[in-house]
């Protein structure tokens, strides 16, 4: 009796999980939260969606729910739950690299005014910060900066940084067909 109840609950949870997974994510959401590789259109959408939903729901067991439904003992015996929850763990951690923060340091660029080096901080696929580790100090470089600002009215110089927004399309230097495959535009084309 109790076992049957477990089975039914498990089945219900599994069905809910399937429905949640089926509910396609907003295309724009996926575009912003793009996995670095972004392989196939549909395959890219599903793994992107799954961890997001799993994280949103305080019920990570909902995902392997179909397996749990088939083995109602999962919630009952400790030994049964152990191996079940272990394979679930790498799945959540597999999503983790997308949201981890890493710093990427550019090369030292030698200019006639001094050395320039930029470091960016990347969270997932977004640049959240850009700092100049090394910039020419004083003297001629300041003169040049002022001269540039004075001369080029209507333009302002800032460290190039990433801007996050919903996009319809992306303008960029013409890529080869190969370059296109690894572009934001290709990702946009795939999710729509």
């Amino acid at each position, binding site marked *: 009796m109790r076992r049957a109840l477990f089975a039914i609950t498990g089945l219900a949870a599994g069905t809910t999980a399937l429905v949640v997974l089926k509910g396609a994510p907003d295309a724009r959401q996926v575009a912003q939260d*793009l996995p*670095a590789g*972004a392989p196939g259109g549909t395959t890219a959408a599903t793994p992107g969606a799954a961890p997001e939903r799993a994280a949103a729901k305080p019920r990570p067991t909902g995902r392997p729910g179909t397996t749990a439904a088939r083995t109602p003992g999962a919630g009952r015996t400790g030994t049964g739950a152990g191996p079940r929850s272990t394979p679930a763990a790498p799945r959540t951690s597999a999503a983790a690299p997308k949201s981890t923060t890493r710093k990427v340091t*550019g090369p030292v*660029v030698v*200019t006639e005014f001094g050395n*320039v080096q*930029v470091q*960016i901080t*990347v969270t997932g*696929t*977004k*640049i959240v910060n*850009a700092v*100049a580790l090394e910039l020419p100090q004083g003297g001629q470089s300041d003169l040049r900066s002022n001269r*540039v600002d004075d*001369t*080029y*009215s*209507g*333009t*302002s*110089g*800032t*460290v*190039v*940084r*990433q*801007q996050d*927004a*919903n*996009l*319809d*399309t*992306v*303008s*960029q*230097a*013409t*890529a*080869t*067909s190969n*370059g*296109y495959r*690894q*572009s*934001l*535009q*290709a*990702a*946009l*084309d795939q999710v*729509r």
Partner: protein
Amino acid sequence: MTAPVTRPGLRRVEQVMGTAISLDLADDLPAATLRELADDTFHWLREVDARFTTYAEDSEVRRVDRGELPLSGASADLRAVLARCADLWGDTDGFFDAYATGRLDPSGYVKGWAAQVASDRLVAAGAVDHCLNAGGDIRVRGHSSSGQPWRIGVRHPWDAYATCLVLTGTDLAVATSGVYERGHHVVDPRRGGPARGLRSVTVVGPDLGVADAYATAAVAMGVAGIGWLDRLPGHLHAVVTDDGRLLRSTALPLAD
């Protein structure tokens, strides 16, 4: 009332001119009409590619360059393109040069021009809301299927999956030229070597072929291109230098 499940319009991507061309028709027209418009658009782009490519020895451009086909016997399109290239050579102080590589290669103008013509034809056919992205050079008209003006990201020059600016508008040509995709391939026609100093140049204006040519010319100019762009009438720009600085027109139509 429930929200519509599917968006109106049509989206299609095809590989033409050695790059990907993405068409987004946002008008709520019958599916058959949209398909026909997309077919016509890509047919035109492939036709241009066949005639203007420098990669096939039997293309019209190659035959003219070798002297096998007199200019008077060339198509009206080719003659118009070469006339525009000559104008652009003057407009850019020689930095846009269809002969920069030593032989006739108008492709710095052709792709943008072809996309501009395609966009004009779509408007004439009643598809007033569309976005045509020809390998990163974009012509937008009207609104996206969300009903909002189009939102155009400019690729971050160091990150293929990020943008450094987002533009918005209902009638814009946006062309970007840069050295991050194919290396230092833009030739400085004055020095004969690869252009350096600017990593990415985006030009916004009314005509995509002209915007593309201006962006390429500015890359060829190097840092001096920033001042040149700033004095360019009727066009706005954004520049990212090799050392990671962003300089742009204050009037650039930024989103938000």
